């Protein structure tokens, strides 16, 4: 066993922590460019290794059996989960990892309170306040992330679930939490452990209630926000433990996570507050449709679609949420391969929020070996649309709805869309005419140059690929 050599809070330990957080900053910075991102991740991981080893070498550390038990279990779970997870399940995986991080913070805060009380120390406010903050935010983050995970994994319904008077209940909970925080802080000579546990429980309930009413497609923004929260709570734990590595790393994640959250919200043309509190998409499905009154639309089969595609010069594929759910990325790639073999130019138009989180669609298509240069961002592809022969919409809905541009009263008015209706012909592969996440009808489906192919995205793509092969 390595003997502890570093004095806690001493110069050597602090210097090593400085090395660690410098590596984090370099790692995040490199993570913002496609060419260096992979290396950036490894650099950040190396920083983490430095930080962990430094901590293990601190003087006076004991309970090695338990430490290695915890490390062993955690590492095993992390490795197995990461290897097994499907690319389509990435968002919920991130939610789960975020949740356990928040849970760790809450547990550390609780343990700090217990430890301090058992030593009969009084808590200076500059230590107690960060502990309380870490406990509350960690607990909210843990439970909120778990709900987000359960929704994305379809363990609970993804549609918004809200009790009547939800906002009132949340407000009461929040007031109760703040009150207990104040009581604990006033009584900082010997804060009540019972009250602290009650605080963790109330924060847990709040975490559940805030995330439950949020619809599945908004989850990525919520996870990103909770990610920032967990970072801040880690920084708070750093204040309590006088640990500079925790303060810097936690704060970095808190502030960079906040920026990412706002960028994601901007891409959806919504404010973060609107996402958190509006219960968007809660309107009953098919609201605009009326009773059975169907507008005229053109329905085609796989063979017709194959013919339209095979005799086109340029095809743009617009993948969406439904493609991710149906895991159709490989089948779509087969269609593209068949078309390219016939000399058709195939590109992919990626809406900023396509898939289950920003950038998710790029990951899925990259998994199916689609070349990076064929993935076009929205601003890049829209001017090309009028020169496109066939646009194929696979499992996307709201992000193609022309109402966002044409109808100022539409709930999605102003949302940037991929302008597929500019293309000569549009094929929409979709299970039904049902509205998308926004709960509104998509005018695109009823335009004269649009053909609907009603099928599961994966099956339809496979059928089209084989039909093209038979032509």
């Amino acid at each position: 066993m390595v003997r502890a050599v570093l004095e806690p809070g001493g110069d050597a330990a602090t210097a090593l922590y400085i090395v660690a957080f410098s590596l984090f900053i370099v790692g995040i910075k490199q993570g913002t460019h496609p060419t260096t991102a992979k290396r950036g991740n490894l650099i950040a991981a190396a920083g983490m290794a430095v930080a962990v080893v430094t901590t293990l070498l601190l003087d006076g550390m004991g309970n090695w059996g338990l430490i290695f038990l915890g490390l062993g279990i955690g590492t095993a779970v992390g490795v197995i989960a990461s290897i097994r997870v499907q690319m389509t399940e990435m968002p919920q995986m991130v939610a789960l990892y975020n949740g356990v991080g928040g849970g760790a913070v809450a547990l550390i805060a609780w343990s700090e309170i217990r430890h301090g009380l058992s030593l009969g120390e009084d808590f200076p406010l500059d230590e107690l306040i960060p502990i309380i903050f870490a406990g509350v935010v960690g607990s909210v983050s843990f439970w909120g992330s778990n709900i987000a995970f359960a929704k994305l994994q379809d363990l609970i319904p993804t549609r918004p679930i809200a009790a009547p008077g939800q906002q009132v209940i949340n407000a009461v909970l929040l007031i109760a939490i703040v009150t207990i925080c104040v009581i604990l802080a006033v009584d900082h000579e010997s804060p009540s452990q019972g009250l602290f546990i009650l605080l963790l429980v109330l924060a847990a309930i709040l975490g559940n209630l805030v995330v439950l009413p949020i619809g599945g497609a908004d989850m990525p923004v919520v996870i990103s926000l909770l990610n920032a929260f967990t970072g801040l709570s880690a920084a708070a734990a750093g204040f309590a433990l006088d640990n500079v590595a925790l303060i810097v790393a936690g704060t970095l994640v808190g502030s960079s996570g906040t920026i990412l959250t706002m960028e994601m919200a901007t891409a959806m043309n919504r404010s973060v507050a609107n996402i958190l509190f509006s219960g968007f998409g809660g309107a009953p499905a098919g609201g605009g449709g009326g009773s059975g009154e169907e507008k005229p639309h053109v329905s085609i089969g796989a063979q017709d679609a194959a013919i339209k595609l095979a005799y086109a010069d340029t095809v743009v594929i617009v993948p969406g949420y439904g493609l991710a759910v149906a895991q159709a990325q490989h089948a779509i790639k087969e269609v593209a391969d068949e078309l390219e073999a016939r000399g058709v130019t195939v590109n992919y138009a990626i809406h900023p929020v396509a898939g289950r989180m920003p950038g998710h669609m790029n990951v899925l298509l990259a998994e199916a070996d689609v070349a990076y240069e064929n993935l076009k961002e929205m601003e890049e592809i829209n001017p090309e649309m009028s020169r496109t022969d066939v646009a194929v919409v696979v499992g996307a809905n709201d992000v193609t709805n022309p109402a966002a541009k044409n109808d100022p009263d539409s709930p999605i008015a102003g949302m940037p869309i991929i302008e597929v209706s500019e293309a000569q012909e549009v094929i929409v592969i979709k299970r039904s005419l049902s509205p998308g996440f926004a709960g509104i009808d998509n005018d695109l489906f009823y335009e004269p140059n649009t053909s609907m192919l009603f099928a599961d995205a994966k099956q339809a793509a496979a059928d089209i690929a084989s039909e093209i092969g038979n032509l």
Partner: protein
Amino acid sequence: MDLMTEITIFVLAVFVGFEVISKVPTTLHTPLMSQTNAIHGIVMLGGLIVLGYADDGLEYVIGTIAVAFGAINIVGGFMVTDRMLGMFTRKPKPKAEADGKGGS
């Protein structure tokens, strides 16, 4: 470390965080979120310290769970990010998955 020094560090770190993230292509939002997610696994240090100096039954349990949670966050977070970013490499040649760091 005195409180004001810690607050100075905190404020500077806020600005560094904002500065470093500006202008990320949408493509990288998911991996970057996953990477910063792994970095807040740094809380495991807190768990290690708490457990390392713990001296009663419940603290052992809480500390061990906290360390395990932190380790999942770190190892899982970095490995999953690595897998995602691996999808972006140009050549589809099969290569061994680089494994995550930070376990022990």
